[in-house]
């Protein structure tokens, strides 16, 4: 019963909205607009779920004094202090909230991604050492595309590198992306149909 009612809601709404796509009648459109208003009102509460999950997880670590539990205090202080700064002083430019964003969150986020440059180089080296034909093709395509993006590439290999880069992007890359997009599209249709017909129920959890 506890799983059947949500399942009936999902199946009914799925069939109604699938039909709405083909028959955009005024009644159907009004119902869809009403539904969107409801979904928009429900959505912000999902953030509460994230906050609760994070708080409970890190509080449990602190209470149990698991290894490295001190860092959980840092996470919780960061979480609540930043949120409080946004609510107390506002989110406009020049507030403590924006100062935290510009001088704490943004530099760390950018550096995290910059750090990946080193690991990508390491992964490329490992792929090269694998000495398989596929890995070599991948690496060669990457090197050509990279040199085609920077002035030093043109200086080293001439204007031809730009044409080769453009050809890789327009021909094999396009075919590759199209083949994968078709596969993903068919996969999405299949998964949506499984949910619509009630075969896929993992989103309802495993309990009774």
């Amino acid at each position, binding site marked *: 019963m506890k799983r059947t009612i949500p399942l009936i809601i999902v199946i009914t709404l799925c069939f109604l909205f699938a039909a709405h796509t083909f028959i955009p009648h005024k009644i159907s459109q009004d119902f869809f607009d009403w539904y969107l208003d409801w979904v928009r009102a429900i959505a912000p509460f999902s953030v509460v779920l994230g906050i609760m999950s994070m708080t409970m997880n890190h509080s449990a670590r602190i209470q149990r004094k698991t290894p490295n539990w001190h860092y959980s205090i840092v996470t919780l202080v960061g979480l609540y202090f930043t949120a409080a700064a946004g609510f107390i002083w506002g989110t406009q430019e020049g507030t403590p909230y924006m100062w935290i*964003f510009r001088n*704490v969150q943004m530099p760390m986020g950018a550096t995290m991604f910059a750090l990946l440059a080193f690991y990508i180089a390491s992964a490329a080296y490992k792929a090269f050492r694998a000495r398989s034909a596929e890995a070599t093709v991948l690496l060669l395509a990457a090197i050509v595309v990279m040199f085609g993006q920077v002035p030093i590439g043109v200086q080293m290999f001439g204007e031809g590198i730009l044409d080769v880069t453009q050809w890789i992007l327009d021909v094999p890359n396009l*075919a590759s992306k199209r083949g994968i997009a078709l596969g993903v599209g068919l996969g999405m249709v299949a998964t949506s149909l499984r949910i619509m017909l009630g075969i896929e129920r993992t989103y309802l959890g495993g309990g009774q």
Partner: protein
Amino acid sequence: MFEIFSNWVAAFFTLCIFSFLYKDNPFYRFAEHLFVGVSMGYAIPLTWNASMIPNVYRPIFLQHRFELIFPALLGALYIFTFNRKLNWLSKFPIAFGMGLVGMGVPMSMNAGVLVQMRGAMIPIQDINTFLVWVGTVTILLYFFFSKAHTGAYGKIVKVGIWYMMLGFGASFGYTVMARISLLIGRIQFLVIDVVQNTIRFFGS
């Protein structure tokens, strides 16, 4: 003076993250945990202002659309996710949101399949359109798992793998360039914004 201080705070956290290149250490862990907390904390007021105020507070309390109290209560049921006995209540807002999946069937079919097929079904006028056609067909054959990739079929499928490797290589090249661009940005920040500005400030 405050700008110099702000830059030094940003530089400290930047160096904390970079310290991971040497090995995992307490400075990195401190910055990593703070980053997670601050990122989540940053999202809360944004969600409040961009979603809670215009979609819940304003319609109910200012426009008096009291029927929206029901979805708000439905959304509040999310909190029972962590309660073993009342966990089933949290499935209702999830189920309500999943209704949109029904719309996804025709929309995915259109955007993901038909548009791509329309792009693929063009007259073969030159060698490049022929190569694109060959690539698309062989990649689709690669993803057809009901037949073993052996014999002549395996060789055709191999062509698809090569096409995919070229495509992945192009994406990989772009990703590396984006990451290096970010790295240059961080190095410029450390050298110009932090070191040079500090020297200029204390030198003047």
